[in-house]
């Protein structure tokens, strides 16, 4: 893989990973609602997931910058 392509594929991977994390959070939210959580707490849950999503995003960026393969070198 050309080194110039590395940032591009990392961005694609981050998008995919964040999609997975987003789906996971959505699943947790739906489960919580199914278990009887009132609708009015949905907003709080969304905020918490957004903050946790930011944490996950930061981690994914750091992880891929450090460990994504450099095949051309």
């Amino acid at each position, binding site marked *: 893989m050309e080194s110039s392509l590395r940032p591009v594929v990392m961005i694609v991977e981050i998008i995919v990973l964040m999609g997975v994390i987003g789906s996971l959070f959505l699943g947790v939210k739906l489960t919580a609602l199914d278990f*009887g*959580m*009132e609708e*009015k*707490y949905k*907003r*709080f849950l969304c*905020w*918490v997931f957004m*903050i946790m999503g*930011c*944490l996950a995003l*930061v*981690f994914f*960026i*750091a*992880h891929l*910058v*450090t460990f994504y393969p450099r095949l051309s070198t």
Partner: protein
Amino acid sequence: MGLTFSKIEGKSKEFYTLFILLSIFSLIGFICFMVSYISGHHVLGSSSIIPWGMPITITIYFIGLSAGSLILSSLTYVFGKEEYRPIARLAVFLAIVLIFGAMIGIALDLGRPEKSWRLFMFFVLNNMRSMFAVNGILYGGYFLIGVVYLGAIFAENYKFIKLMGKIAIGWAALVHMGTGAIFGFIATRPIFFSPIKPFEFLTAAMVSGLALLMIAVVAVFKFTKRDLKQELIFSLSRLLRILIVVLAVMVLVDKLTHLYSPHREATVWLLTGPYSWIFWLLQVGFAYILPLIILFHPGYSKNLKGVMVAAFLVVIGIFGERFSLVVPGTAYPLPLYPGKIEGIWGMAGSFPITPVESFMSPGIFTLAGLLFLVGLKNLELLPVLPPPPQGTEGKGEGAQPAPEAAKKT
């Protein structure tokens, strides 16, 4: 039981300013974490000699604050002290936020947070004779219990609240005693090793948790223009001074025992060495002596500002207590070769304050602050305001959003 609760409106300029400031500092903290992940832990001041730096100090500090706060919520929900009901929900929520902050601290200290799942592979990948593995059960369970407890409070299921309250107190005590045991059971670290550490940690947790709760309650009630009965804070301050005395006695006993010959070098080094100012100024001065002077003073102890100053000193001082345990405790050389100095391993370690660590550590605090603020805006944590005087309706954060949002508990 007749008290109603509401969330804050969260539309004032002050709220947004605070929110933006906390977000910016959290973002800076995130960026510093990225730097530490990419470059390695040495940018946080840690080394082979001092592997536990600021993230672990913050973690045990947050665990203490959280456990203390949760135990205090039980005054209402378990022991039936109705006068503390206005702050009980806030105490439970604060406990959850703080344990979340502690988990973030642990994740940052791991260096490779993606491997944190291994912490929860009990009996499979973990050595269950290790205090770290035992504490994994305690921390994970504590977070879940806290969330279920808060859920029960919001659902107004009184039987379940009482049951969860009892479980939460016991678990919170175990959590902090377990954290103390991590240190107290390490026989090779003379500054850590002590059978009294679990109890010392539990008392320190209650002291710091109570002090932080008092600050949070006064700040939030003032910011949202709620009527705070000052007697509530004064009664908590009386509890605080008793707990400080108990903690000071425990620390005194611990240090005196360690000072007794023949293995006293490590404690003498702690009390007189390069980190001694943290012990004497922050731990002894800020956490014990100054707050006790204020809280036993006939004038200052009945003045809200005086009590708040004492609470601030305690919160800072207990952080100093954590720091003066973690860093000097690991900096003192291991007794691998008794009676000899063997190269670098015979020298005490040094802990440099680095820029990355200096910005990352406040990021953990601001992230917890951000979550707390989000909770205040979206959850019914604060008691409903008394009717505002004429001509001041709708001003300030305390304006109630809607009557149906207020809940009885």
